[in-house]
C-alpha cells in the first residue's frame, strides 16, 4: 500500500510536499521518545502531536508518513520542515482510534 492509496481510500489531506512511498505498518504514539525507541521504517505514524519536533523524529526513524488525527490544526512551521525532509504530513478529521480501525480494514498489519 502506498501513501497515495491511503490518501485516496481514507480521504486524508496531504499538507506537505513529498514523494510516494510504500507503507508497511502502523505505529501510534504522541510521544517523540516512544517513536524514536519503537517505530519501524515504513510505518504510518498516527499522532495528535503537531509541534514541529515530530518532523526530525519521523525522519530519524524513517517512518513512511505522519498522520495528524482528530482534525487538529497543524502549524505552518511543522509543514514547512516536513516538506524540507520530504516527509508526508497527512491530515485526518477522525480520531486516532477510529482511524486505526479503518487502517486494519485496509489490511495494514504490524510486521
Amino acid at each position, binding site marked *: 500500500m502506498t501513501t497515495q492509496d491511503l490518501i485516496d481510500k481514507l480521504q486524508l489531506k496531504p499538507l506537505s510536499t513529498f514523494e510516494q512511498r510504500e507503507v508497511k505498518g502502523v505505529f501510534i*504514539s*504522541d510521544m517523540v521518545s516512544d517513536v524514536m525507541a519503537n517505530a519501524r521504517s515504513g510505518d504510518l505514524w498516527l499522532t*495528535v502531536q503537531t509541534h514541529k519536533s515530530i518532523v526530525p523524529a519521523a525522519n530519524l526513524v524513517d517512518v513512511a508518513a505522519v498522520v495528524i488525527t482528530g482534525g487538529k490544526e497543524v502549524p505552518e512551521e511543522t509543514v514547512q520542515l516536513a516538506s524540507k525532509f520530504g516527509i508526508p504530513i497527512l491530515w485526518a478529521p477522525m*480520531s486516532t*482510534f477510529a482511524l486505526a480501525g479503518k487502517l*486494519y480494514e485496509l489490511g495494514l498489519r*504490524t510486521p
Partner: protein
Amino acid sequence: MLLIRQVKEALEAEVLAGEEKLDCQAEQIYASDLMSDVLAFGQPNSLLLTGLATQQAVVSALMAEFVGVVFLRGKRPKDGCERFAGANGLVLLGSHLDMYEACVRIDSLQRGGELISAAASPEVRPEAHFLSRAFTVQGGDFVNAGLVSTEIKSLLKTIGFDPVLVRRVAIATYEGEMNVVMHAQRGTVQLAVDPRRILVTIEDQGQGIPDVELAMQEGYSTATEEMRAMGFGSGMGLPNMKKNADELEIVSEVGKGTTVRMTFLV
C-alpha cells in the same frame, strides 16, 4: 458501549486498580499520550488508552471524568498511582500490547465480531523476548557477594523460563561472580536474553588465569586462607560453570583480566 471487563480480556491486561469497577461501561475509547488533548477533547465516561505511564495520566483521566486508563506497551505508573486511582473510583489496567494492536482489538469488540489482531504473526512481543542488564561486582566485597546472581535468577524466573534452566544460569553466574569477588579489583556481569538463548558475560580487571586448562580441573584453587575460612574458594568453579552452561568460553590475560562467556540455550 463497552464493558471494561471485555476490554481487559481483549487486551490481555492485568488490573492495577478498581477491580470492583470491571463491570462498568465505557462509552468511548480515547487513544492519546497528550494529556492536554485528553483534557480538551476527551468525552466523559471514556476509557483512555495511553503510553504515558505517569501520575499526570491518572489525574487527567479523573479531571476529564473518564472511567479508566489502560497503560500500554508494558509500561506501569509509579506505585502510589494505583491507590490514588482506586480511591477516586478509576479503573487502571496494564497491557503489553502496543497502541495500534489495542485499538484494532477494541474496534473488533465494538463491532461485536470475532476478536482480531493486527499482528501479522501473533507471537510478536519483542520487548519481552529481548532483555539485557549490566551489573557491577566489587572485588573483595564478600558482604554483597551473590547479589548479582540472585537478581539475575529472579529476573529470569519472572520472565517465566523453565526453573531447571534458571537454576543452571544462577549457579554458573554465582561461580563467576565469586571469582570476581575473590580474584579481581572489580568486574561486570552482563546478561543478554533473546528468544533462543541466555548469554552471561563476566569480565574482570584482575590478575588473569595463567593456565586456563589447569584451572578447569576440579579442586584447583588459588584462594587465600582468609577466603577459605569464609567458605569460599574450594576451586575456581570453572568445572561447575562448564557443567551448567551449554557453551563456555574463557579468555584470560595475566595481569589484565579475564572474560568468561556462558551461553545457555532456551
